[in-house]
Structure formats: C-alpha cells, structure tokens
C-alpha cells in the first residue's frame, strides 16, 4: 500500500497536516476544534444535508460544509468567523422551526446533539411564530419509539440501517418539509433490532422503548465495561439507577466498537440484576439444595477434593468462557497445582476440540484488529454466520461491501446475510465443511507458486480429485475457482472462521486447512471464538494440554468429553462446574446427565439455577460480569478491563475469590490482597499478559506470542461426506441467533420480546414443502429427542437447511440433535397452526 499524500492547511489560524482526503471535520478534531455535525457520522459516507457544519473557506464566496470538504494544500478555513457563525446560527434557527421544546420530558435530554449545539449557536428565542407541525408518537416494535416531532430529518438512521446494517428497515417518506421517517411499510421495524438507529439519532426522535422515561442521564451511575456475550469485546456503558441496570450504551470515543452495539449488547443488561439470580450458597440435604453458610459450603467442597485425592480419583473442572481471565487463571492453578490434576477444559460445544499444538499454531498468527477491516483488500469468512454470531465483525464487513465493493468470500451451509451480498459464496452442504475447505485450499494453492508452504500445500492438494471434493461439498470446481480469484483480487487479505467450523466433527483438519489457506494466500487468520472470553480461556490454559501462555502441559489431561465419559464410568471424584452447564451445552446430553449423577461430588458455581446446578452437591452463587472487576480478552486478543457496574447480588462472590478460598482450605498459602495482586502474578507468570492491569482496553495493543513465527504447512486429512437428508425431514443446524447468546439472555425480558422461545427458522421454499406457516407451533423430532418450537420464515436459514437457535432451557439443541454431528435431520409436524387475524 502506498503512503497517502500529506496535505497542510490552516484552520482558525493553526496549521494542520493530514492525509489527502481527510474531511475538514476530522482535521479540525486533530486540532481540538469541534465542528458540530448532525447528518454526518463516522461510519457513513458524507451526506452534506443538515448544513450545521458550515464554515468559511477563504477565497470562496460562500460557506462550505466541513463534513464533506476535504483538506487542501494551502487552504485557509475559519470556523468562528462572522460568516461561519452566521451561517450556523441560521441553520440552527431553521432546525428549531419545527422542533418541539420538550427537552424536559425527552430521553435524549442531557445527551442531545441538538441541545448542545443549540446552547452554542442558538438565539434563545424563536422568530417563528406559526404553529409547528405535529405527529403522533408511534412504537416501531419492542425496541424503538419514533417521535417525528423531534426529527430533524438528518437521515442518519435511514443510512445507518441501510448502509451499515444492511436492513433497510427505515426510510424517508414524503418530500420537503413533509419529509418524515417511517418504516418501509409503515408497520413495525423488521430488522435486527440493533437499536443503532436510536444511538445515531442526534435528537430524541428515535428513543429506546425499554429505557423510555426510566432515568435522566444525570441520574444514572454509568460504568464503562465490556459486553459479556460474543467475543467481539464491545465496550459499553452500563447505566444503573437505584440498584437496577436500566440501559447499555456505547460511545463513539470508546472501545473497538465505538458507538456500535448489536441487539443483545444493547438489551442484554437485565440479567445481572434479575430477581432470579442465585443469592446464597446451597448444600444438598435430603435430596434438595438448602441455603447454607459460605464456610459450610466451601468446607464440604474442600473435604470432597481431599477425599477424591486420597481415594485416587480425579478432580476435574469445566469452566465457562465468560469468566474473567483472573477467574480462569486461578481455576487452572487450583486444579493443576492444588488438586494436582490436569483435567480441565472450557470447550463444551465442540465435538472435536482443537489439540494444543494446533491452538498454538493459531496463536502464532499476528492479531488483526477489527478496525483493519476498513482497509482490507479482501476477506474470506469460513463457517461463521458472522452477522448473527459476531455482529461487530459482520457489520464492519458489510459496510465495506456496500461502500467499496470489497471482495468477500463467504463459505457457509446456510444462505447467511453476508453471503447474500458477497462477491462469492460457497454454500456447502451441512457437514461438508472439510470438503469445502479442501476444495478452496486446492484452488488457492493452484494460484501460488514457487517455494515454502505454498509449494508443499500445492503438492498435497494436487492429488485431491475435484470430483470427490465437488460431490462431498455440493460445490463445483468453478465455484472454488471463483472464490479463490475473489480472495486474490484484493491486496491485504484476512480469513475469519467461527463457530460452525469449530463445532464441526472434523474441526482439527478444517482448521489445518484454514491455516494452509492463510499461509498460501498470505492472509491474516482470525478465529472468531464464540464466548466473550474464549480467547482468555485459551490464553490462561483452561485446557487439558496447554498451560497458560500456550506452553505444552507435561502430562495432558482429559478434555470435556473425556471428563464426562470418565465421570459417567465412576472415575471422577470431584467435578467443578465453574459457570459451565454441560447439560445445556455438551452435545451428548445423556452422557452429561450420567456424568453428573455418577461423579462423587459436583460443585457448581453459577448465576442462575440451571439443570446442572440443581444436580450439584454444593451450589455457589457467582457474581456476573456486571458486578466484577477483572479482564477479558476478545478475538483481537485485546485484553480489556471489566469494571463492576452493579452491586453484588446477595452473597454472590467473584470466581477467583472462591477458588482462592478453596485453595487456602486445601492448605495452600494463597493470599491475594486484591485483584491487582492477582493481576501482578498473572503478568509475571504469563508473559503474553504483560499489559494486564495497566493499559487495558482499546488503547492496549493485542498480545503477540513471544518469539513465534508462522507455522509450517499443515497436513489436512480427508473428511467423510455427509449423507443426504432423510426423506420427509429437514436438515437443521444450531447456533446463536442475533437476539440471544447462549443460555444467559433468556433472563433478559427485552430479548425475550425479540425471540420469545424455541424457534425454527426455515426458508420459504422449505416451509412450503413442509406445509408450515409463520407462527405455527411445530413438533420437532430428531435423533436426540423432541422439542416444540414456533416456525419463523427466513432468518439465517436455507435453502434446504433450517436453523434452530440454542437459547432456551427445556428446549436446548442437545435435546433435539444427536451427539454425532452439529446438524440433524428433523421430522417436523404441525401441532397447532398460527392464528392469523
């Protein structure tokens, strides 16, 4: 890439040098000069409509708009000259012609761009004496309230929805001063309900229905922390009023996401202060769990660990990858050092978890920040519905596709959102991820020559037959060729992969193929893990075969499946479930049930009652992320600070404190004065985390594996081709819906409005074939059992593949799917047809 040409110009008598093409608003910001904007937005292309950014440019007869004007060599601008001030004052007066003076009852009040700009440029009283226009206030669904009276028709919401989210749910109707915002058909919003339209609205025209009239910004105690759902690691500000969290809001100067949040990030703030939270330790007495003192509960756990050790039985742990780095680090110390056991894992959903050396190979690739997407030449997204699973990455990619037709290849079994707009799609058959990856690898290698890993990969792939790859994946050689050409058409490249790839039965070979693709094409390789701190769990060595910092464990222990199998066969003395619920997440639910039943002692730490916690011998109340200080690491490997935004619920305790007390109970001399002391130890023992506790958050750089060089070419095994779907069934897959994440969000009322319960998404053509209609209640029968679900047409489904998101207790995906594969052929029958009014 060539360096941009630098241009020097003058703003308010001060010179600024900026790359050619820099907008005046941004150049002014470099000097600390704030030019007001309404229609302009950092993610959107300049529009130039609202005119509030008018400034003077010397030698131009009239003011120019700073939001679209670019720096020019020698140009002289004035933001405070008479011409500039008069122009902006005039615009401000126009904006207030039809704007109501209802700031005292407006949710935006105190955080309103129009209010702020009005203080700066307004004239205090209006010369407009006629009646203002007026509209009724309307609900646009469960999330958004539209008050057109306040709207200044800047079109930010419409453009954000269209250009950035790809939803086009909003539009401007009518013309001239009748111009007004509406949904496309005048009904409720049909979209991802991300609420970014509310966030970008510079006035109170679009406000949040759940937050409506709940608080004024100055009543809120706001704390900056990191979202606990997916691995994007979005920063947000949790707002608390009288002990209850009432909103989450992102700010454009903070975080990797700046002002972006998805629906679950924006509306997932309720569960930490839910009344359903566990408040007290409980001990099993006479078949049920009874409230107990901490000392008694911990004492039982300590004795159980001692008993297991003296009986020569295993002490094992399964952890949630939502726990903080500090929790995870101490858990692995407890298991490894105090209980002298190598058996721990955090990967519950993966059928074929990646072996340690492969994880280390992945860690050897340099980290790539999400912001790099803006300058990428091309991208491949493999086995990830990136818009549903990792919304920040999804929306960042979509923006580049919209704005500069960035060449993107999407390989997925379903017709996912990004694939619909991508230059090249590889819609492989469910379960044929490996065949699809091998085909693409063969095409990519064929383009590259001479030496190094490319040569090795080419030799390996040369013998693979196109017929086998095509019949295995359902794709053609031409499709692979097109995908390869698309990826090569950009300069800098990145390969992203995610949960579908990681949950595949052949995940290790698939990841080897992806490593080879990256080596051959010179692309960055970015795994998009599924939980907020999956990256941290890997880094902290909550793995059977890696110690913290990717050091090989001297004697590898058991992974999740092995722990559960051994437990079911009576070899496990203690099973610690640190926020983990294998009943909900492990593919083989029956095995998990047996494991919990047969373990001598089950210790559960969790936020809520779960099927697993209710089978435990001792259940401890864990603090949620919102009540915890600590750190989490996102998919950029950026270590970010968690800050407690709410008071702890009941007697709940931080995970690391619980592990510390267990260790001391077992005779260890652990004594951490505070979190900082623990972080100091992590810094000393895990060199990757030298930033921990110091400069964390978006300002921190991502860690890099010390002394790592890119791995060599990986041998890729051959997969089994999946059988065709059985007659009369629909092949169905599972994952996260954009409205929920894992099993936590079912405690959030707003998210339940967006997706209230078990739902089967399927393509219109499949619904027609199976005689199902939107809203029908259907009985789904699969290899794992039966569940009931509502039918929804569209979503991340099809064609030929349904989607059953996994979020609801009692209807977990593992009750429906068998343990063998992450998809299943489901028999669907209508229980009751939807009532259509």
């Amino acid at each position, binding site marked *: 890439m060539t360096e941009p040409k630098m241009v020097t110009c003058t703003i308010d008598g001060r010179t600024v040098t900026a790359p050619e093409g820099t907008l005046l608003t941004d150049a002014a910001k470099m000097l600390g000069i704030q030019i007001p904007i309404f229609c302009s937005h950092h993610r959107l292309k*300049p*529009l*130039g*409509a*609202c*005119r*509030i950014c*008018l400034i003077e440019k010397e030698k131009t*007869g*009239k*003011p120019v708009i700073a939001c*679209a004007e670019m720096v020019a060599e020698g140009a002289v601008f004035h933001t405070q000259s008479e011409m500039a001030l*008069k*122009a902006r*004052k*005039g*615009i401000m*007066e*126009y*904006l207030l*012609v*039809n704007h109501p003076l209802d700031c005292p009852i407006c949710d935006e009040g105190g955080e309103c761009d129009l209010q702020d700009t009005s203080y700066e440029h307004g004239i205090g009283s209006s*010369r*407009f004496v*006629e009646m203002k226009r007026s509209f009724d206030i309307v609900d646009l669904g469960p999330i958004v309230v539209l008050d057109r009276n306040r709207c*200044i*028709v800047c*079109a930010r919401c419409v453009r954000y929805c269209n250009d950035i989210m790809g939803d086009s749910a909003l539009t*401007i109707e*009518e*013309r*001239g*001063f*009748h*111009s007004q915002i509406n949904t496309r058909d005048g009904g409720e919003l049909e979209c991802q309900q991300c609420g970014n339209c509310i966030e970008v609205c510079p006035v109170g025209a679009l406000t949040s229905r759940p937050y409506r009239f709940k608080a004024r910004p100055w009543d809120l105690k706001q704390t900056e922390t990191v979202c606990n759902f997916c691995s994007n690691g979005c920063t947000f500000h949790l707002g608390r009023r009288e002990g209850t969290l009432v909103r989450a809001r992102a700010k454009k100067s903070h975080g990797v996401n700046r002002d972006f949040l998805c629906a679950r990030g924006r509306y997932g703030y309720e569960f930490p202060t839910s009344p359903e939270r566990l408040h007290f330790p409980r001990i099993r007495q006479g078949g049920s769990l009874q409230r107990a003192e901490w000392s008694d509960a911990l004492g039982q756990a300590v004795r159980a660990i001692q008993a297991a050790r003296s009986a020569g039985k295993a002490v094992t742990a399964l952890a949630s990858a939502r726990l903080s780095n500090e929790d995870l680090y101490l858990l692995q110390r407890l298991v490894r050092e105090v209980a002298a056991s190598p058996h721990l894992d955090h990967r519950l959903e993966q059928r074929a978890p990646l072996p340690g050396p492969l994880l280390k190979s992945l860690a050897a690739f340099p980290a790539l920040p999400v912001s790099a997407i803006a300058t990428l030449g091309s991208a491949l997204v493999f086995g990830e519905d990136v818009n549903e699973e990792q919304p920040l990455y999804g929306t960042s990619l979509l923006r580049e596709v919209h704005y500069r037709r960035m060449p993107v290849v999407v390989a997925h079994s379903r017709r996912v959102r990004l694939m619909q707009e991508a230059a090249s799609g590889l819609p492989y058959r469910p379960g044929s991820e490996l065949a699809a990856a091998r085909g693409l690898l063969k095409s990519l290698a064929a383009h590259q020559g001479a030496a190094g890993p490319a040569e090795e990969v080419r030799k390996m792939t040369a013998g693979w037959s196109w017929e086998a790859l095509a019949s295995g994946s359902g794709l053609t050689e031409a499709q692979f060729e097109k995908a390869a050409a698309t990826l090569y058409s950009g300069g800098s490249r990145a390969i992203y992969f995610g949960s579908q790839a990681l949950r595949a039965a052949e995940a290790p070979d698939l990841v080897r193929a992806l490593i080879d693709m990256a080596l051959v094409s010179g692309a960055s390789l970015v795994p998009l893990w599924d939980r907020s701190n999956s990256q941290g769990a890997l880094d902290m060595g909550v793995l059977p075969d890696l110690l913290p910092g990717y050091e090989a464990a001297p004697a590898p222990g058991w992974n999740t499946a092995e722990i559960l199998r051994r437990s079911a066969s009576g070899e496990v003395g203690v099973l610690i479930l640190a926020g983990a619920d294998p009943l909900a997440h492990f593919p083989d639910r029956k095995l998990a049930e047996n494991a919990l039943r047969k373990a001598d002692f089950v210790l559960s730490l969790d936020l809520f009652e779960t099927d697993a916690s209710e089978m435990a011998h001792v259940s401890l109340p864990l603090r949620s992320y919102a009540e915890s200080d600590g750190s989490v690491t996102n998919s950029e490997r950026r270590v970010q600070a968690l800050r407690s935004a709410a008071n702890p619920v009941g007697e709940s305790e931080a995970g690391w404190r619980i592990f510390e007390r267990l260790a001391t109970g077992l005779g260890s001399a652990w004594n951490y004065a505070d979190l900082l002391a623990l972080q100091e130890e992590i810094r000393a023992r895990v060199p990757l985390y030298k930033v921990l506790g110091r400069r964390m958050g978006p300002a921190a750089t991502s860690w890099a594996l010390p002394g790592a060089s890119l791995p060599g070419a990986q041998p890729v095994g051959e997969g089994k081709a999946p059988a065709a779907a059985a007659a009369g069934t629909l092949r169905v897959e599972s994952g996260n819906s954009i409205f929920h994440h894992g099993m936590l969000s079912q405690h959030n009322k707003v998210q339940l409005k967006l997706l209230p319960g078990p739902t089967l998404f399927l393509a219109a053509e499949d619904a027609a074939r199976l005689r199902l209609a939107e809203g029908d209640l259907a009985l789904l029968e699969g290899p794992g059992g039966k569940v009931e679900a509502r039918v929804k047409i569209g979503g991340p489904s099809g064609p030929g593949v349904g989607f059953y998101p996994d979020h609801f207790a009692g209807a977990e995906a593992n009750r429906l799917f068998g343990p063998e594969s992450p998809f299943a052929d489901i028999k669907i029958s209508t229980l009751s047809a939807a009532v259509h009014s």
Partner: protein
Amino acid sequence: MNDIVFKGIDTPNLRQLAVYEANGGYAAVRKALKDIKPDELIEMVKQSGLRGRGGAGFPTGMKWSFVPKVSAEPKYVVVNADESEPGTFKDRELMEKNPHQLLEGIILAAWAIGSHKSFIYIRGEFAHIAKILEAAALEAEARGYLGKNIFGSGFDLDLVIHRGAGAYICGEETALLDSLEGFRGQPRLKPPFPAVKGLYGGPTIVNNVETLSFVPFIVNEGPAAFRKFGTEKSPGTKIFSVSGPVKKPGNYELPLGTPLRKLLEEICGGMLGGHELLAVIPGGSSVPVWNKDYLDVPLDFESVAAKGSLLGSGGVIVMSSKTSMVAATLNLTRFYRHESCGKCTPCREGTYWMEKVLGRIHRGLGMPGDLELLLDLCSTLEGRSFCALGDAAAMPVRSSILMFRDEYEARIREAAGGKTPETAGSR
C-alpha cells in the same frame, strides 16, 4: 429569428423521419460517424462556444471533455427533458415538433464521449411528448439510425425514454440521476461530478434538450456559423419563452444579446391593452425579478448577470400593474416550498417559513419587521443550501422586496390598521 433550432419548426409532419431527413436531417450524424473523430467533435463544440441552455450556461464542449476517454464503467448520455421551471416551455416545443433533431444531438454527443447507452429523462406530465419521442426513436431504430451499427458505422447506441414522476428537483442533474436509478430524487454531493461518476457510477453527461438540439447545426455548418449569432461570450441563439400579458407570448429563438425591449415591444408586440409593464423575470422563476427600468439590458449570460439577475432558462415572465407582487412572490415561494426535496435543512425549513411569512403579509396579517425577517431568511438560505433550489427560492423573494418594497410595506401598514409599529405586532 428562428435561425437554428427553430428553423422550419412548423414544417408539416416534421416529426416524421422522412420529412426531417428531406429537410437536411441526420446529415450531421452521417458526417460525424464517417469523418469526424470524437475528439474533433468535442473540439468543434468547444470552438462554437455553445453553453448549456438548461439554466447554468456551462460550456458544453468543456463538459464533454471532462469525461474520461477510458472507463471501466459504461459511459452515459442523459438528456434532461424535465422542463419544469415555471415560465419555461421551450424544450416542450422542440420535442413536440422536432424530436429527430434532439435524437441527432444525442447520437452526436454519444459519439463524442464514446457512450453506447443514452436516456431521455422527461418530465412526467409530458406523457404525450414521451410518446412522440418514442415514435421517433422507433422510426430511427427501424431505419438503422439508432440502435446497433448506426449508419453502418459500427457505432451502437441504445436510447431509453424515462418519464419522471412529477418532481421539480429532478431537473437538478444529480437528482435526475438518482431518480433515474430508482432512488428518491435528491441531489448528490459533488464532487464527484457526473462527468466522472454519474449514472450507475459511470461517466455521464447530462445535457438539456435545447443544448443538444444545437449540435447538429454546429456539425453541419461549423462552429463559425454558430458564432455568427450572439455575443463573444454568449454565442449563438437561444429560445426565449415569453409569458404574461403581452400581445404575442410564446417561444422565440433569438440571437443572444437581443435587448429585452426588442423582445417585448417588437417581437411580442408590447403589452395587452389595459396592462402596463410592472416587472419582468428574465430567466425562469428562479432568478431575481426586475422592474421596468431594465428593458434595455441585452439578453445574454453576462449582461443579465451584470444587472443583478440571471439568463437562466430564458423563461421571460412578464407581470403587469394588475399583478400584486406580494401575491406573485407568495405563489412562487409556495412552489419552491412544495418542490423542496427536503434533503437539506435551509431549503426544507426556509421555504416553509418564508411561505408562512409571505402568506400572512398577503392575507393582511403582516407584522412590522417581517420584511427584515424575510431578507434575513433569504440570506441564511442563499448559498447555504445543498443545491441551487435553495438559491432559486431565495432570489425572487429578496429581489421582489428590494424592487417593490412599497407594496409590501403598504400591505403591512394596512394590517397594522394605522397603529404604531410597537403595538402592531399583536394579532
């Protein structure tokens, strides 16, 4: 009079290809495709000094030369036939009576810039004219004058005739392009200019009907013949659409630089009986109005601008002493308020507010200070709006207050009922 584009305009059946051709039609295209290289054609148009007849007067040859020679995206010729400027009806007659002259101009423009797809964006209300153009295009295509391999030259040009849906703003060239692409008709940010990135992102020239209709003449007779008419900086002829209480209103093609007095008194035969000249808007409704002191101004781009107005589209609107300037200005402002697309704040809110103030003055409810308010609104609208529509809305208001302030003040005094200015504000 009627020396170039209106020459023989009333020849019976001129719409028919055979009649047009018998009168020398399509000779320019035959000649150009055979003997004139695209660059030479652009140079000819440059030399002729032809300036856009849609209102802005931008040099046509220069506009064509901005189109990149090599482009990855297709290039387009788009004809702006969205003639909606109040007081302007010249393109209408050109298309109604001599459609093939326009088609010939389009083919020449396409040849010059290397375009193979052209569009006529025609005002929605001109449904009958769209049919005329379609018939002409079909006839031309059937004869091999349009479509594939025109005149056996190997040059292809498709033509699409697209009717607008009734928005004045779509006469603004970038709004026209958005509308043509199927979006809301709203102006686009410039740069990039359409010549670089226009329709569907391809290099595009957008020319007015009258402008393109001049091109066959320039090719046939040469730039010098065109320059025989008009002035040095405004060469050639121009159609003036005269409306109002004159004896013979209508379209007249005259050399640029013809004095207004000659147009009104000689060619249009002066005012109708009982009418005395009060005001003239010389270039369509979007330009400043003159009082009767400006009759000796030569009608060319420079001279009109030097006297505080603009030649614009050449729509000469004549108003007599029986016209209320307050009512006329309110009428125009209502038009601009109705036609403001709503994209930018000053135009959307300013036209609305100005109409309210003018309306109350007209209804006899004006308040002292209203004229200052109106002039202030003009100054916060003019030069601040996204496109020229805001300027267009402000200029008639400002000029009519400046020229006819007495009438406004009298209206406001009547409203105050003789009260002092301090007490007159309460209604």
